[in-house]
């Protein structure tokens, strides 16, 4: 299997990379652009915010080649369905694309999703023609409801946003994978390359992260590590791992041993 024969399809669009990255928390726009390049990501998240009326300040979009990336505007900071829908409408107008990462947060301390508001917003946005990628709890019931509403993917969290705790409940992710047919993308919680590989080995369609790269001591090196981990994890999943056994099973033949 090669990467070219294993495309990720979301909302009718084909992607080669299964790593999606955010653009927040970097030291500079130059560093953001370099990390993006190194990650190989094709889908990158952005936030929708008021323009800076001081035009002397630069914009991230001046630093990145917009032809190379699909922008995935998020609704970060929204705590109600109404705010999230309003933000998505603005994003579509600004970006001329229907792709949105829908997040409706429950509280500031956990940044866990408010699934009730999330479902409400998803229903409205799907009806308005958006390609909705919702950040949600690692809960198969919520994921199935989001799929039934017409979301293009589901994006359960691995752990709290920015926590770097890794995939805290791989069994929940497995249950989601077995019960929904849209792409399952782990969004949030990844801390290191092995976490990303674990998500992919579980069979996830992709991984979305920001802090794990931006907050690393060397974000550009970590971007490369994540790129390779996602590729390795995907290949490992497709290759089919050996069953776990309690006792040893020698790799060298026993025949012909000298004695």
């Amino acid at each position, binding site marked *: 299997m090669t990467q070219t024969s294993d495309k990720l399809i979301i909302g009718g669009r084909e992607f080669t990379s299964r790593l999606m990255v955010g*653009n927040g928390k970097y030291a500079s726009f130059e560093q953001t652009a370099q990390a993006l390049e190194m990650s190989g990501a094709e889908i990158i998240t952005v936030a929708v915010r008021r323009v800076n009326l001081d035009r002397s300040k630069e914009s991230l*979009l001046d630093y990145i080649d917009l032809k190379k990336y699909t*922008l995935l505007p*998020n609704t*970060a900071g929204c705590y109600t369905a109404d705010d999230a829908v309003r933000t998505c409408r603005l*994003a579509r107008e*600004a970006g001329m694309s229907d792709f949105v990462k829908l997040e409706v947060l429950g509280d500031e301390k956990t940044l866990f999703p408010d699934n009730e508001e999330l479902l409400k917003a998803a229903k409205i946005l799907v009806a308005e023609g958006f390609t909705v990628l919702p950040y949600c709890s690692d809960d198969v019931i919520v994921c199935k409801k989001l799929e039934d509403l017409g979301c293009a993917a589901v994006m359960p969290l691995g752990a709290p*946003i920015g926590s770097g705790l890794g995939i805290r409940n791989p069994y929940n992710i497995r249950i989601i994978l077995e019960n929904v047919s849209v792409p399952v993308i782990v969004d949030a919680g990844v801390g290191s390359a092995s976490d990303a590989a674990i998500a992919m080995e579980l069979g996830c369609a992709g991984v979305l992260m920001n802090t794990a790269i931006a907050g690393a001591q060397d974000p550009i090196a970590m971007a490369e590590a994540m790129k390779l981990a996602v590729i390795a994890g995907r290949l490992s999943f497709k290759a089919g791992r050996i069953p776990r056994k309690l006792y040893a099973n020698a790799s060298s033949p026993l025949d012909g041993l000298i004695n």
Partner: protein
Amino acid sequence: MKIILNGESLETVEGASVETVLKQLGISRERVAVELNTDIVPKADYEKQLLSDGDKIEIVHFVGGG
């Protein structure tokens, strides 16, 4: 006349349109979205959408985010 732009008071000319305000602030229309009193103004309407005293305008764009 005065409008409220991104939460701040802004003095602009009588009969200003959305386009007038964007030009006044040096903002390129390409990568922004504009809301007038919470309704989105389509880009095609920036010239013809006239503003009134006290209107609330939001101009947003994309920034880095996760």
